[in-house]
């Protein structure tokens, strides 16, 4: 991958040109030039100085969600590093203040307020669970902040103060089900999930779509978060003999579910039944063990194994920064997009002002994204492709299908509420 040389904005390059023509006392002049810019690019008192701009990172690094959110923090730091190496945003280095949401939703809200009110950060990259996003949403709307939210989620939300860099439910679900029906001739589905809003909403969308296609849902089940015994539901699946197990199990339950599925003699490589998930990224497979999930399919927008130049560079940079053993999942990649999308919007707006950044955001394109080309929709979600990958024993997904066109984000699908 080649991140292009600094893409100076029109204002920036114009100023640089005046500085360069001056030819004398370059350093002093450039400070002066920045000084005159500061007022222009920041009219609302954000933490922007002549050489720096401060942003916030707000994830759980302690508590039960730390397992999942660590990757996002790493990706955001990598993106910030790379942007700084290219000269920063509007000529300013990004500095970040990291706060710990501690897997506790009120803490998220409190820390969000601290970042916006005390630190006056220009943008926040953060949150992972929908619960944490819902907790910070009123804070961001009240104090007019900008949140870049990386996780694939259930949709049914569109805030002017959030850019959703992961997929919303319809993007992940509909393409996946269409594929399994078209390519695998699936007729019957067993829907399974952890018991909270994302799996429930997603399965609702899945069920509507399956029934619209004239096919059948033979079972739908939810287990409490953290549940570790899946033998009963595995027996039910064996009795109902569905063509597809549609699994949205999350967290530690995942490990128990796939290990027990394998132990019960359901060999997913034989695809009888076939397993399709939207909740297991490469990150989760590390805990599950590749040999336990081999043969399962996942529908999401990014796999570490994607074969393109952007991704090769991203994977290499990520491993160089965080260790060679590390794996990169869908959400980690989406988190990586956050700082880049923000940079592009700021430079298009020529200002750090939240309102101007918001106005500039729709239509922002990123050609350097590891997943390929993405574009921000008017509804603040991303146009992106949906891909199907097949899990291998090495813990990586092998790409078997990707949608030809970008999927339009549709956070409020008709008839699905």
């Amino acid at each position, binding site marked *: 991958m080649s991140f292009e040389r600094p893409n100076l904005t029109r204002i920036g390059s114009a100023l640089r040109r005046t500085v360069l023509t001056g030819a004398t006392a370059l350093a002093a002049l450039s400070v002066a030039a920045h000084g005159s810019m500061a007022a222009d690019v920041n009219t609302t008192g954000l933490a922007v100085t002549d050489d720096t701009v401060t942003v916030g990172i707000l994830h759980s690094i302690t508590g039960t969600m*730390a397992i999942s959110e660590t990757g996002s923090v790493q990706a955001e730091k990598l993106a910030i590093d790379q942007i700084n190496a290219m000269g920063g945003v509007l000529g300013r280095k990004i500095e970040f203040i990291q706060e710990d949401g501690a897997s506790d939703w009120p803490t998220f809200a409190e820390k969000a307020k601290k970042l916006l009110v005390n630190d006056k950060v220009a943008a926040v990259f953060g949150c992972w669970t929908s619960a944490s996003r819902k907790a910070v949403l009123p804070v961001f709307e009240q104090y007019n902040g900008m949140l870049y939210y990386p996780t694939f989620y259930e949709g049914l939300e569109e805030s002017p103060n959030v850019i959703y860099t992961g997929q919303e439910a319809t993007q992940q679900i509909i393409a996946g089900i269409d594929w399994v029906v078209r390519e695998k001739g699936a007729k019957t589905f067993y829907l399974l999930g952890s018991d909270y809003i994302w799996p429930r909403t997603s399965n609702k969308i899945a069920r509507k779509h399956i029934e619209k296609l004239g096919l059948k849902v033979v079972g739908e089940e939810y287990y409490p978060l953290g549940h570790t015994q899946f033998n009963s539901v595995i027996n039910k699946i064996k009795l109902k003999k569905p063509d597809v197990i549609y699994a949205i199990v999350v967290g530690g339950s995942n490990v128990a579910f796939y290990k027990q599925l394998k132990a019960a*003699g359901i060999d997913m490589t034989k695809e009888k039944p076939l397993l399709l998930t939207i909740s297991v990224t490469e990150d989760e497979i*590390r805990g599950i063990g590749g040999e336990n999930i081999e043969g399962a399919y996942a529908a999401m927008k990014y796999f570490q194994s994607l074969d393109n130049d952007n991704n090769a560079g991203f994977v290499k940079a990520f491993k160089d920064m965080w260790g060679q053993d590390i794996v990169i999942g869908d959400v980690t990649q989406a988190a990586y997009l956050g700082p880049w999308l923000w940079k592009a919007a700021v430079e298009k707006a020529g200002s750090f002002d939240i309102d101007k950044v918001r106005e500039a955001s729709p239509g922002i394109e990123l050609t350097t994204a590891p997943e390929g080309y993405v574009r921000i929709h008017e509804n603040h979600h991303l146009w992106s492709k949906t891909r199907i990958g097949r899990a291998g024993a090495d813990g990586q997904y092998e790409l078997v299908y990707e949608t030809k066109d970008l999927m339009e984000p549709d956070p409020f699908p008709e008839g699905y509420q």
Partner: protein
Amino acid sequence: MFDGYTLSELGSILAMQGFAGLILFSVFVLMALGLAIIFGQMGVINMAHGEFMILGAYVTYLCSHIFQNYLPGLFSIYFFVAMALAFCASGALGMLCEWALIRHLYKRPLDTLLATWGLSLILQQAYRTIFGAREVGVSLPDWMMGSVPLTDLIEIPINGLFVMALTLIITAAVGAMMYRSGWGKQVRAVMQNRVMAGAVGINTERTDRLTFGIGCGVAGIAGAAFTMIGSTGPTAGQLYIVDTFLVVVFGGAASLLGTIASAFSISQAQSAMEFFLSGSMAKVLTLLTVVGILMLRPQGLFTLKVRK
């Protein structure tokens, strides 16, 4: 829900479901045994029980790595070494904690709850610092995965059989130690009357430490075994703690028999209900039933004795 299935299919499913219940039973007993020893015999509410289990899981993880890299020929039997080491590691940590923390709180049983809860947070963060926040994958020897097919529908998971056998052995060992050995006599004597036990020459402090250590060690073995069926991460212990306390409290803390009876009834009820209802509903009904029974019979199924 049974329309359109043949009798043999239904028979197979019932057999499978019964077996699933037995596995759940074994898992519950294994989880609860260590806690029952500590809570039942010493009156200490050990909130860090799950973290002692996870220490066992991490020891297993380390063992799997070491055997894979240095002794690949012995990989197929590493699990037994790992369980022994898990027992030692968790037991040693347990004795250290007893010496540093718990022994100062014997006269204040409720404070042990807070102290051990703090301990659990400290341990979680320690795991996170040492092993990273992400879950680790424990690779198992091939013979421990997969299943034995009996008929087309009935398949017996090998790790289920393994957990059942392990539970049987551990329970027998703990029972023998408690009711047949000199140490068990001392433990029971200290529990019934500490002053008198001291007067007849029993080293009560040493007995306490050993009891706590053995309870934690058993938790470590359970943690090692659960790498077969669950996840290994800094906070994975929390997944088990509620069920563990449920089993111990419902059983009535004083007797091992109570723990076993309670594990059996809860596991069978839950797995039967899971089959007919959805998973979350089954959990709710199980908890409601347990709460109801405990309201009528606060001492649990079998009598509870706490050190006075």
